[in-house]
C-alpha cells in the first residue's frame, strides 16, 4: 500500500515553495523520494528552499511565475540538470483584496497574472516533457473562494474559478498521453495569513466549518501527494475540496 505513494526519482516542480502550503507540499513529496525543485520570487527565498530540501536531493530556484522569460529560463536550467518535471504543482499565488468599487485595473491584473496566467505559462512549459514521458501530473492549487466567492476578492475568486475551467480543458487535451490535471481547493488553512485574525474573527470562521478547526498545510499536502502518486492515477479534471466541510460541491 505504501508503495502507491512512492515518488522515488520523480522530478517535481512546486511554485511558491518558500513557506506555507507550498513548502509543506514540497517537503511532503520530497519525503516520498521525489526530486523536488521549489521556486520563490527572490534569491533569499530560493536559498531557504534549498536549506530544507537539500537533505532530500532537492533545491530552490528563483522564478517569476507571471513572466514568460523567467519560466523559459528555469525550464532550460532544469533540462540541463535534474531533467524536466513530470509533476507540476502550481501553488504560487497572491491576494490583493479590495471591494470591486475600490479595485483598480492594476489590482485586478496583478492577481489574474500571478494566479491564473502563471498556470497557463507553467503548464505549457512543462507539458512537452510530460508528453514525451507519456506520463505527467499537473496539480493546481485553487481555493474554496473560487467556488463560494468572497466579498473583497473578485480578482482572486475569478482567478481561482478560472483555473478549474483551465484544468478541465487541459485534462481533456492530454488525457490520451497519461497526463492528469487536477485542482486541490483549500478552505481556511492555518498560515501566516490566518494567524492575523483575532479571536472573534476566528470563532465566526470556525462556525462555518463542520470539522471545527482550521486546516493545516499538511491536510493540503496529503491531497496533493495523493494526486501526484500512483494512488490518484485515474482522477483527472477534478477538484478536490479540502476544507473541513465548509463548502460541499
Amino acid at each position, binding site marked *: 500500500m505504501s508503495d502507491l505513494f512512492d515518488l522515488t526519482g520523480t522530478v517535481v516542480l512546486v511554485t511558491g515553495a518558500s513557506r506555507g502550503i507550498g513548502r509543506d507540499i514540497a517537503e511532503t513529496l520530497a519525503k516520498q523520494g521525489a526530486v523536488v525543485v521549489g521556486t520563490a520570487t527572490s534569491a533569499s527565498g530560493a536559498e531557504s528552499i534549498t536549506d530544507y530540501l537539500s537533505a532530500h536531493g532537492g533545491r530552490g530556484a528563483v522564478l517569476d511565475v507571471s513572466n514568460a522569460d523567467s519560466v523559459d529560463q528555469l525550464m532550460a536550467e532544469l533540462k540541463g540538470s535534474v531533467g524536466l518535471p513530470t509533476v507540476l504543482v502550481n501553488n504560487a499565488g497572491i491576494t490583493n483584496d479590495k471591494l470591486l468599487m475600490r479595485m483598480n485595473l492594476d489590482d485586478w491584473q496583478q492577481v489574474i497574472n500571478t494566479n491564473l496566467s502563471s498556470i497557463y505559462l507553467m503548464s505549457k512549459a512543462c507539458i*512537452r516533457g510530460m*508528453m514525451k514521458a507519456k506520463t505527467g501530473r499537473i496539480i493546481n492549487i485553487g481555493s474554496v473562494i473560487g467556488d463560494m466567492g468572497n466579498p473583497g476578492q473578485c480578482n482572486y475568486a475569478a482567478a481561482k474559478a478560472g483555473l478549474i475551467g483551465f484544468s478541465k480543458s487541459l485534462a481533456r*487535451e*492530454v488525457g*490520451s*498521453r497519461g497526463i492528469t490535471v487536477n485542482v486541490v481547493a483549500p478552505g481556511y488553512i492555518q498560515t501566516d495569513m490566518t494567524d492575523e485574525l483575532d479571536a472573534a474573527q476566528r470563532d465566526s470562521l470556525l462556525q462555518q466549518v463542520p470539522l471545527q478547526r482550521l486546516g493545516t498545510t499538511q491536510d493540503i499536502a496529503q491531497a496533493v501527494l495523493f494526486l501526484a502518486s500512483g494512488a490518484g492515477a485515474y482522477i483527472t479534471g477534478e477538484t478536490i475540496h479540502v476544507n473541513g466541510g465548509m463548502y460541499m460541491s
Partner: protein
Amino acid sequence: MSDVENKVKEIVVEQLDLDVEVSELSNSSSFVDDLGADSLDTVELVMALEEEFECEIPEEDAEKITTVQQAIDYVTENA
C-alpha cells in the same frame, strides 16, 4: 532517399509509433487519414520537426503540413 527525407520519415515513424520501416513509408501518406494521428500527434510531430531541424514552424504553416511529402518540402525550403 535524401538525408532530409530519411530524417523526416524517422521522426514520423517514431512520433506516431508506426510499425513500419522508414523505407516503406509512402511520401503521400496523410498523418491523420493514413497513419492514424490525432490532433495532439500532429502538434507533437511539428514540435519534433522544429527540434530536429532547429527551425520555428508558425501555426499557420503547421496547419498545412498534413502529409509526409509536405513535411519534407517544408523542411527543405525553410530549415
